[in-house]
């Protein structure tokens, strides 16, 4: 139940409601260091074997900025290292391409029963460290369940809102029995990739077929605390009606992270913040917890989190023929006779497709089919 939304709207039912932009003078707020990074039990080398682009463990350092800013100022000249309770140290190096620090050791993977903390020394001499964190092993994600079902949705038809039924697939992850007596804290991240074809190009054209990935599709944070297991936890609902993503072939790469209580709290709070707007029927907004501290000044405000995750992943493919019904798609590139026509982006070159954060015409090695 989303009480917040309903009561915010309920309070609007009077005729003279109006909304105006408003500014608050918040100048004087000192910029804070932001630490963004994590490590897991799956090294870069091991990730290369997974059906997804591998990613070196990173630490991104930035300064906070004004609330209306988009890209924050990065900090390229810090010394970053990972310290362990075993006395080991792993160095990070600045990557100009990625604009963040990458761990030098590509075989590094977090081990059980070892505490890790990130150590950061800025050029100014200020030293920051994260609070120790360690792996919380959890059963790996090895399968998902899908259920074909319909949902009701409000859509705009000729300027009028209408409630319509939409078919789709509910994807959930089975959580096995948890008899450990310990709470397992999960976060799942979903990154979809799908095939997009430029219908105005002939088969065989290298720019006919592209593989589109959008890291922003499932930005709604999915976290869950499990005490017992033995049930399915819903991950996301994929609409299939009027969804061009499922026209040819669709895949979702699901990464499951098992987190410490503190890291879980960070993600859970972020999830709450993203659903709240500061209205009169909203709970008070708040700044997220952090596990980063200035070693010499515990009162300094720092943002971000460095966490240690027990990671596992699963790639799921959906083909149109898997659906118990036949989908019909309207070709957006097909001219309508008698009407001036400007083909949408991507009709003549799949690399121009704008519905994704990353588009390539190079078939990923892990891609099935076609």
């Amino acid at each position: 139940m989303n009480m917040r939304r309903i009561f915010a709207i309920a309070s609007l039912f009077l005729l003279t409601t109006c909304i105006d932009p408003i500014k608050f003078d918040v100048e004087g707020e000192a910029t804070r260091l932001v630490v963004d990074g994590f490590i897991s039990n799956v090294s870069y080398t091991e990730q290369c074997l997974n059906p997804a682009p591998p990613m070196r463990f990173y630490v991104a350092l930035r300064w906070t900025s004004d609330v209306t800013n988009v890209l924050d100022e990065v900090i390229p000249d810090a010394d970053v290292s990972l310290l362990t309770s075993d006395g080991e140290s792993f160095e990070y190096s600045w990557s100009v391409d990625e604009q963040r620090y990458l761990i030098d050791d590509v075989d590094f993977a977090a081990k059980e029963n070892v505490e890790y903390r990130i150590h950061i020394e800025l050029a100014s001499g200020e030293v920051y460290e994260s609070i120790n964190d360690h792996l919380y092993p959890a059963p790996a994600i090895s399968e998902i369940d899908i259920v074909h079902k319909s949902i009701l949705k409000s859509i705009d038809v000729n300027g009028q809102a209408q409630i319509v039924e939409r078919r789709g697939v509910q994807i959930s992850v089975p959580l096995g029995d948890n008899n450990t007596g310990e709470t397992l804290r999960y976060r799942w991240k979903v990154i979809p990739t799908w095939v997009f074809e430029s219908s105005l190009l002939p088969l065989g054209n290298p720019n006919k077929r592209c593989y589109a990935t959008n890291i922003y599709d499932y930005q709604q944070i999915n976290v869950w605390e499990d005490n017992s297991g033995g049930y399915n936890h819903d991950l996301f609902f994929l609409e299939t009606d009027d969804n061009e993503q499922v026209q040819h072939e669709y895949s979702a790469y699901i990464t499951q992270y098992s987190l410490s209580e503190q890291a879980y709290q960070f993600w859970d709070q972020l999830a709450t913040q993203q659903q709240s707007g500061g209205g009169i029927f909203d709970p008070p907004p708040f700044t997220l917890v952090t596990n980063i501290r200035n070693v010499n000044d515990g009162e300094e405000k720092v943002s971000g989190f460095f966490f240690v995750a027990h990671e596992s992943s699963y790639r799921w493919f959906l083909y149109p023929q898997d659906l118990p019904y036949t989908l019909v798609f309207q070709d957006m590139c097909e001219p309508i006779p008698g009407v001036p026509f400007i083909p949408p982006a991507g009709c003549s070159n799949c690399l121009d497709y704008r519905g994704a954060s990353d588009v390539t015409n190079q078939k990923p090695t892990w891609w099935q089919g076609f």
Partner: protein
Amino acid sequence: MRKLLPLLSYFFIQTTIIFGQTGIEKIVFDQDYSVTPLTVVLQNLENQNGVQFFYKNDWGIEAFLLNGEKGQDALIGINVLLETYGYSLIEYKGLFVIVNQEGLESYQYEFWDENDINLDQYKIIGSGKPENSNLPVLIKGKIIDAAEGEPLIGASIQILDSSEGVVTDIDGNFEIPLVPGKYKLLVQYAGYEAQSIPVQVINEGKLDVELFNQTLKLEEVTISARSQEISVSEKIAGREILDIAVIKSLPTFMGEVDPVKSLISLPGVSSVGEGTAGFNVRGGDPGQNLLMMDEAIIYNSSHLFGFFGAFSPDMIRDVELYKGGGPANYGGRVSSVLNVNLRNGNAKDYEVAGGIGLISSRLSVEGPLKKDKTSFILSGRTSYPNWMLKQMKDPDLYQSAAGFYDVNLKVNHTIDENNVLTFSGYLSDDNFEFASDTAYVWKTKAAIAKWSHRFNSNFLMQTNFVVSDYKSNIENNQENFGFDYTSGIKNYQGKIDFSYSIGAAHKLDFGISSLHYSFDNGTFQPNIENTNSEAIFIPQESALESAVYFNDEFSISPKVSLVYGLRVSNYLTLGGTYYEFDTDSPKSPSSIVDTLTYQNGEVAKTNFGLEPRVSFRWLITPSSSFKASYYRTNQYIHLISNTAAISPVNYWKSSGYNLDPSISDQYTLGVFKNWNDNLFEISVEGYYKWIQNVVDYKNAATILLNETLDADLVQGKGKAYGVEFLLRKNRGKLTGWLGYTYSRSLRQFNESPFDEEIINDGVFFPSNYDKPHDMSVVINYKFSRRFSMNMNFAYSTGRPITVPVSKFQYEDFLSILNFSDRNQYRVPDYHRMDLAFTLKSGLRKEKKVDGEWVFSVYNIYGRRNPFSVYFTQRGNAFQLSVLGSAFPSISYNFKL
């Protein structure tokens, strides 16, 4: 003079016989006096001159030190000394009397001459000779409505030019002790024409008075239910009464009179914003106000999220607010007690009244069931706001529907002169159907049975049985995700109050009450087709709150009074499931180390409270007073609401294993002054309030359907302080008041060793209701007896909010907001002006329809006051104003 003789009855009269002194020769000091106790000087003068001085021993005049030279006029010297202490010396028939008032002249005393040629103009009370003409005799009487014969409860009988007076009891009876002599009595009651009655008291006797309803009389609106000097003479600090005539005269939003919201025009009372439910008293939150309708606790004070009042104005006699704990017979909330007092039906004739407005209409019927014995009044309201929703551009709202109704019934039956039975019932229902799929319904039901019994004229008993039930319900009937959510609170209360007068000096109130709560903190039941959701049952809680109390209204002297009392409360948390948390880590579901389950009725936790109350009043002069008070109040139930404005889905939770009761200590000091025959009054009252165990919420707390809510609650300290200023004009064509309050309301949560349970680094921060400057101006101008204008202006500092102060990128998220500490910024200031014009029908008394048209314009200059401020994920701020332009309305009220 008339005020003096009663004083004499208190004097300890020293035993000296006066020897035929028919004239007073000049009395001089027989020696030099240097810092000599006045009593020594008086003794010397008595010995030297054969005169006698009268005074009351316990005034302590021996502490008054006199300087005087031999041969100096002694009476002048003594008087000068006495006046420095607020006393004076007067001569009466050759006697010298020290009185505890200054400025009295001896000639006033001569008014007591029995040979007054106007004696026949006075109503004679009593016959024969009193045993002692210097001692008071008892005058008894009854004040009734002349048209209906209904006793008027709380009518005031005041001795003119004196601070003395009494009010009628539940049967309209009064008793007042008066020394035989002539007086002018002023009898007043809200909405009725006051009567000034000259009386000659000879001996014990009876005086019955019939008052006429003011709406049919010459004078119209009175500004207060009480006599105009009551703000000065009121013995209980922090007590405010708005009578329904004043409430109806205030400009309203869409013509809808809201007796509860009218209080916001008084100093010390505020709200988060228009269109919000609840109100805030002296920095407290809405859940800290005890709202009662004829003794029944009401948990929802408004309709449709706060835009409309919960009570029909036709049923209401007056609204009585205690800012603070009030007398000891009230308890259970730490900020205020608000009584919405219903009136009785007409016991003589049938009447129909009503009103037609843009949003709602109301109708009331009243009359005798058995003439002069049993009366009833039935009132109902219904609403029709859907035409407004159809104007909305938002498709969800276009498809929504809303409505409310309420019904009130009160039956009053007089068994005999010593026994009265009363039954009241109240039903209120709100519904809001959102986008045709989700229906919100919230209901209040209350019933009160009351037996008033008089053992004798000094000893009264009132027995109440009350049932109150508040339920909030959300129903979703969609096939795939339908559900039914409920929450609520239900209570049964039994209460016996006694009132016992011991002479004129003591009025003792004492009694016992017991209140049983059943809390439904949330039940979520998916419907059959909804297989995606699981049922959630938050464990039910119940509790028994009992109290014994006594309260003494002690008139130490005509000037000095002390209302003191003690309430002893006991709270038993019964049954339920509670969690024990690991003390080495912050409270969270994962830090639960044990689950404690108690059976129904089994005592899980006991709390006990001693709640002393003291209110002191010193009448400096008949028109000025000084007051001080201290109240301690315990609150055992908490309104769970982590938003700035309360909503119908907020619910009440019991104190228990992890939640302690809130305890408030409030101190007040005030000075009150009237002048120009009570035409004007001015007051300044300061307060300081300290509350232990106020409830707040951890960051990101979820309050609905949270099975481990205790882990998300934090308790801390609250403090509020302020100065309230009121300037009021009571009579004439132009009446009204200016109220201004400077106040702060702060919270501190620093008692946990864990950062997660500390808010704003453990320092005091503004509460949601902290609005330092709050001003209201209410002006009523009567152009004629039929046509009047009301203006209302309100200004307040914007309420505190928390705003984003910076952002950062994290992983794939481009913008994550950093917020300021809680409530460190403010929305823009609030101000608004309203106007209302009232045109009454003709003044002929015997007309069939007595009606009035009310034209009002709410927010006349279209101020866009912020209702809420919200932020996009990119940090852009927007202000939402729900009433961003002038809003005219018209309504018609009638009485048949």
